[in-house]
């Protein structure tokens, strides 16, 4: 697709030729994830997580469709149909635990995928659209996960739904009508459960569609790589198949082993015990907490405790929580450094690791009770989060002096000396001192 030296699909079997003439679907697959897609030869293991996220999505869709066959979307029976699935359906416990823990693993690999992009500057030109579509997928995932957590109709399901839809109630004037409209009532009930189930079934397929756009947009410039130096010639790339299918196969194996350990030996470790208590609108849990993958955002939401003149603290928290995700959409234009990879950006690298620690602290505080000292800690951590993306990053881009970049991907892999001899044989590569970032 993206490079002139990409291999072309030439079906040998007459049946494949016949199909290719009528519907070039095999060709499409060949060019997308087969030998027809040239990929930089120096990708490290952090580049496995895109494929792993796709694997996680497939696991969720398969287990989810099976769960839906045994689920009753009615507040009277929702909790007990889930229990019956666990007890009386053949391998029902496996489907249920795989689906619940699969959501956690989906978020784990997507967070690693996002931080990979943040460190190696994958969001920069010419891949802005890949980044933006990825964020759309992330938002859809959050909506899907939230609605999925409501379906078992446990205590955390109910009270989580109440708190999250209550966020819309913080909007002045129109907030409460919006909240009532979203829930189909004044509190989470049967109408809410039914629409959440409907949307929870629909959204994964919307995610799958946006994933196709995400991959399509990626294939226009081609994959980025750990040096951030663009591909210069055929010697810099290898065909996706068999090179990266083999590497991703190994990555998928490691992913599945870790997934199996959690699923078979600690399936409730990441869940909350309260969700094994059936929803009871008359009994509020001591601490209402969302699933772990929302904790950093939950900490930001709760960090605002002081009204800003006429703006109530609660509304500020809601705005900040949405802003904390929406600001990522502006990242390609906030970080103006021409160097993509964090490996060659000494100042950026330091702040990047501070950000990682900061987000982990936010996550910890988001899962802790809304009491001191956790609120104070999350206030400082949230302040850094906003400052990092909106103030520090643009300033670093301006003043940082990057380290010298390798001349090419091949040089980064094989070392400068090793390709000295090849250089004469391959004119047109590696001669410009500052490789172009314009493309």
């Amino acid at each position, binding site marked *: 697709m993206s490079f002139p030296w990409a291999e072309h699909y030439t079906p040998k079997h007459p049946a494949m030729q016949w199909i290719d003439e009528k519907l070039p679907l095999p060709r499409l697959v060949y060019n997308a994830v087969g030998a027809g897609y040239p990929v930089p030869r120096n990708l490290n293991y952090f580049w496995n997580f895109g494929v792993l996220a796709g694997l996680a999505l497939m696991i969720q869709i398969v287990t989810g469709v099976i769960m839906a066959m045994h689920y009753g979307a009615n507040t009277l029976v929702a909790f007990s149909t889930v229990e019956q699935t666990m007890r009386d359906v053949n391998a029902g416990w496996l489907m249920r635990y795989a689906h619940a823990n699969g959501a956690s693993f989906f978020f784990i690999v997507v967070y690693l995928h996002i931080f990979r992009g943040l460190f190696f500057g994958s969001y920069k030109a010419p891949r802005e659209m890949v980044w933006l579509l990825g964020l759309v997928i992330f938002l859809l995932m959050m909506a899907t996960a939230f609605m999925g957590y409501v379906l078992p109709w446990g205590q955390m399901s109910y009270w989580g739904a109440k708190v999250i839809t209550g966020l819309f109630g913080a909007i002045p004037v129109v907030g409460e009508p919006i909240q009532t409209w979203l829930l189909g009532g004044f509190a989470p009930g049967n109408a809410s459960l039914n629409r959440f189930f409907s949307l929870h079934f629909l959204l994964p397929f919307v995610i799958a569609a946006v994933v196709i756009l995400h991959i399509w947009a990626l294939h226009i410039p081609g994959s980025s790589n750990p040096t951030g130096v663009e591909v210069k010639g055929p010697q810099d790339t290898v065909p996706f198949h068999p090179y990266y299918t083999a590497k991703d196969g190994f990555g998928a194996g490691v992913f599945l082993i870790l997934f199996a350990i959690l699923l078979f030996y600690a399936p409730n470790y990441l869940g909350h015990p309260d969700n094994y208590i059936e929803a009871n609108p008359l009994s509020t849990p001591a601490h209402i907490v969302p699933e772990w993958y929302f904790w950093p955002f939950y900490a930001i939401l709760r960090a605002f405790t002081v009204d800003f003149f006429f703006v109530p603290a609660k509304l500020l928290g809601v705005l900040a929580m949405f802003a904390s995700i929406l600001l990522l959409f502006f990242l390609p234009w906030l970080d103006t450094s021409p160097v993509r990879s964090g490996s060659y950006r000494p100042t950026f690298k330091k702040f990047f690791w501070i950000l990682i620690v900061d987000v982990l602290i936010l996550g910890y505080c988001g899962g802790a009770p809304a009491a001191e000292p956790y609120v*104070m800690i999350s206030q400082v951590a949230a302040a850094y989060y906003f400052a990092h993306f909106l103030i520090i990053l643009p300033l670093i881009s301006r003043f940082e002096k990057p380290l010298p970049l390798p001349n090419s991907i091949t040089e980064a892999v094989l070392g400068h000396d090793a390709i000295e001899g090849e250089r004469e044989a391959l004119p047109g590569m590696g001669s410009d001192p500052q490789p172009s970032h314009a493309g």
Partner: protein
Amino acid sequence: MIRIGAFLVGLFFAGWLLVSFLVGAVAYVTEPPAVTVEHEFHRDPKHVAFSFDGPFGKFDQAQLQRGFQVFKEVCSACHSLKFVAFRDLKGIGYNEAEIKAIAKNWAIKTPDVDPKTGEMTTRAPIPADYFPKPFANNVAAMAANNNAIPPDLSLMTKARHHGSAYVYSLITGFQPQPAELLKEFPDAKTPEGLHYNPYFANLNLAMAPPLTADGQVTYGDGTKATVDQMAQDVAAFLTWTAEPKLENRRRAGLATIFFLLIATGLAYMAYQNIWADKKKAA
């Protein structure tokens, strides 16, 4: 333009968060949060060893049967077990005839409709029935239990942190209110009709100590029925009711992980093999 806007937004959020922090910090220093009685006197569950601990642990069927006996003779008077059916008892080693007899002789009857008159009536449970509830509804439960509803026990060990140890600790944890508690928190005296128990979230619960004397239950297998033994047995039984597929899960996990280790090993070798010519100069 984007960067100026972002700078201002960032300055606002970060600035106001730091103001909130200062306000919170001043309040924290001038008025440190009061220590609550729960914070000081609540205890985490005791350490207790079960046969099903650890990744390879299995249920002890004799223990599950003893625990079932404790449930039957003590707990079931007030607590329901609505997600467990009599037929499920096969999982703790009873055969069909035994299950039929257990269902038939169960103290609480199953509500049903009289097939001749259509009137509401009750009948003896059959193996296909779920354990019948001791109270017709929540109002009846509250009326009989000092305004508290005895919770269903099917999922209790999964509905609390460290559930098995929690059930054991709660049952064996009743004690007189410590003198130092009353000295420090004079208002926290256990109200009339409630019972002090440091393993319960708010320290006072409506349930009276259910196991009070050794030998309250007479075990058929000769095990000495001390309070401690009965509490362990019923905690084990409730672990089974909450997770009856625990052993299947661990067995399936072992086979799955064994397969995945081999498959991943092969995948790694395939990866190394395919990449062999790309790691060095071409």
